[in-house]
């Protein structure tokens, strides 16, 4: 396991809709790529060089900069068996590590239980954005979900202090878990109790933060700024979850995809700059993933659902470089006869993060033993 001075932290960035990995890290010298993408292909003259076969999308300059600094591991060809191309199932499988059945427990929910077995700190896991992703859910594990960090708190609409305090007291008693009240009522009790506790802790965060980094105003920049604010406040959060939506680019991909990649890569760069300024970057690793890659052939305007894709690990302690093989574009090697295949099971990456970074036994969380990468500097 890698050792850092502060407890290791994982930041997950979920790209919702299926990011087009082939147009993110581009097989720029492959003739099949250019033949398959007459409309949407990144042209060699525009692309940012990566090595003699691959290139970055022109708008991914901030990520290229981090890569050139040696802080980005590119996981080429990530996926799993029997991909059925559904958003639904795809995301579910990534969240739960269960390709064959539906379960409600997420891999990070289980991880948070291991990191904080007694559930002492309700902000060990925090999700930013609207709604809690299944990855963070596990029965009995408190996880905090924040849509707006600046107005977070129960009964914050009651302005009279004494009345609010009294109301909070009653609220606390009403949400005391009672035996035999049923699963949903019980869930609500725990959620209410945790909401009180996390509001108390998070209430102090915005006041502690100051930074010279100016984030852009879009959802992923806002979320990563919130992660930076909470992380630098030192309240013991170990797992952060954020989401960036809109990657389902069946149409008008030339307009949409570069906009998303610009928002994403700029936000990631600003985030790490911010953490470095606060001397709080060494203990942070970021995982960027999407539920699937997209079809190799474009459809004239966009790309349909595919199978294999790519992921990134980013951080000061990440050993930058390429991991796995870029999936072949040769027909015989394709998944479903038309998609990129995969060379690395996503559970290998999870296992690597769990065992080597967070120091949590991976097998029970990913439901099996998977070959691990060596992406961290000892």
């Amino acid at each position: 396991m890698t050792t850092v001075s502060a407890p290791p932290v994982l930041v997950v960035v979920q790209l919702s809709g299926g990011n087009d990995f082939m147009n993110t890290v581009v097989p720029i010298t492959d003739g099949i790529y250019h033949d398959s993408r007459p409309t949407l292909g990144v042209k060699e003259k525009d692309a940012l060089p990566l090595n003699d076969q691959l290139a970055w999308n022109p708008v991914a300059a901030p990520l290229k900069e981090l890569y050139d600094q040696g802080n980005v591991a590119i996981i080429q060809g990530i996926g799993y068996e029997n991909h059925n191309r559904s958003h639904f199932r795809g995301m579910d499988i990534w969240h739960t590590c269960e390709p064959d059945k539906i379960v409600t427990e997420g891999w990070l929910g289980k991880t948070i239980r291991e990191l904080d077995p007694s559930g002492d700190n309700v902000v060990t896991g925090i999700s930013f954005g609207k709604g809690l992703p299944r990855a963070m859910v596990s029965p009995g594990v408190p996880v905090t979900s924040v849509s707006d960090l600046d107005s977070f708190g129960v009964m914050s609409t009651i302005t009279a202090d004494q009345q609010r305090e009294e109301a909070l007291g009653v609220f606390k008693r009403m949400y005391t878990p009672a035996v035999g009240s049923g699963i949903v009522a019980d869930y609500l009790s725990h959620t209410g109790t945790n909401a009180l506790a996390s509001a108390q802790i998070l209430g102090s965060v915005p006041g502690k933060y100051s930074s010279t980094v100016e984030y852009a105003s879009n959802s992923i920049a806002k979320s990563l700024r919130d992660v930076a604010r909470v992380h630098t406040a030192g309240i013991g959060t170990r797992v952060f979850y954020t989401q960036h939506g809109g990657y389902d680019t069946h149409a008008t991909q030339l307009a949409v995809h570069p906009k998303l990649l610009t928002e994403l890569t700029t936000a990631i760069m600003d985030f790490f700059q911010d953490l470095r300024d606060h001397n709080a970057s060494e203990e942070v690793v970021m995982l960027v993933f999407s539920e699937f890659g997209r079809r190799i052939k474009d459809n004239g305007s966009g790309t349909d659902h595919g199978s294999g894709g790519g992921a990134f690990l980013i951080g000061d302690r990440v050993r930058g470089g390429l991991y796995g093989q870029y999936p072949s574009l040769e027909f015989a090697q394709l998944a479903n006869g038309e998609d990129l295949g995969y060379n690395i099971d996503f559970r290998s990456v999870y296992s690597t993060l769990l065992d080597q970074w967070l120091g949590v036994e991976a097998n029970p969380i990913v439901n099996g033993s998977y070959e691990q990468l060596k992406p961290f500097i000892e």
Partner: protein
Amino acid sequence: MPTEDLALVSHLLRRAGFGASRKDVENYAQKEYEEIVEDLLTPEKSPEYDVDFISRYFMGTVTSDSFGQTQAAWIYRMINTPRPLEERMTLFWHHLFATGWNKHEHAMTCVQQIDMFRTICLSDMTTILIALSKDPNMICWLDNSENHKDAPNENYGREIMELFSMGVGNYSEVDIKNAARAFTGWTFTQCIPLYPFGTYLSEFEFREDDHDYSEKTFLGEVGNFDGYDIIDIIVKQPATAKFISRHLYNFFVADEPQVPAWSIQPPRDPKAIEILANTFIQTKGNIREVLRTLFNSEFFKNSRFMKIKSPVDFVVGTVKIAGSHTVPQPDLINLSGSTALMGQTLMDPPTVESWHTGPEWIDSGTLTDRVNFAVEHIGNLNSDGIKDIINRIKSNGEEISPEELVDICLDLLGNMEIDDTTRKSLLEFSKNLGVLIFDNTDSELESSEKIINLLQMIVSCREYQFA
């Protein structure tokens, strides 16, 4: 014959509508239960909603860059429509055929689709799927405008089966490709205008020159199918009857697991789904008939408080009890903003798979938002509904015990049922409020505030999260 069971009427109005004040419940209850159901199922009997009135306040329907205002205008309609089930079903189809504003950022096109849902909401499944397949918002959302004879785009061909009618596992990848081919040439007259200046609407257009007229195999049938044929074949599949019935059950009766689990997990009440699916099959997918079966069934009547309120249920239901926003108020836009904060941005669902429902609406963040919203709105002494509640309590006389006060408040807030933990806490709170006195202006104000404090605690409790 009036319905004596006010709690049942209250239940019906929470599910078939968006909740009701006690006064509304009493009005509806003047008829027999079955008659109330018929009235709800026949919106034509009630006066039409006055669109012009709200349009004067909310220009969102005539300018395209005001998405927030169009959301607020829809919330206002949910609060004030004389045809609650019509609006409820409009929301149902929006939930099932989740289409997002973010793809084009053109609010008028979203409103055009919602208006379409309203006109077909109680018709039959064939009519509904045809209207859906011709809707510009959907054509854009699932890229059917990019589905060409020589370059098929599978998006709509897949989702019309996976998400909108049959559910995963009932068709093959080949069926998807052939459905996509059948829908080639189903496009719009012009692209949806890009924000923010376009003020015209796009319309459906069938382009013969871009349609694949060749033979297709679809769900075991062979022919030169077009979109209409595909829809006909889909509607007669037993999988469609079950899938739509389960959606109706999940929306109107009790929370099911999330949709992706349906191909694996059986329904919580398989008998109920069978009853609904049978009506669906017998009536060739007539939605009004399926709903008639549903609302008159025992499983519906016995399903009180078995659903977690959606953010829209929560916000609109709370406002209806408070009796505010019966005329457009400046803060109307905060209501749609609140549903968004609670995880439901109207006309802009998170993904094609729509919103996750039931307990997944709730996490510590959204629970906090819900409690804060209810406390604020039930705490407004100037709202008509709150005044009415106070007057009703006042008319019960001054010798009202803390127990009675809690019970009356629970009744007036929709015949709520609470467990012992909650009751104990509320009772303690009620006792601490002291005696209610209404003998002069000062004491009346003080007593009113005490009642409001208790109401605020009740709408903060776990049980208020259930519909």
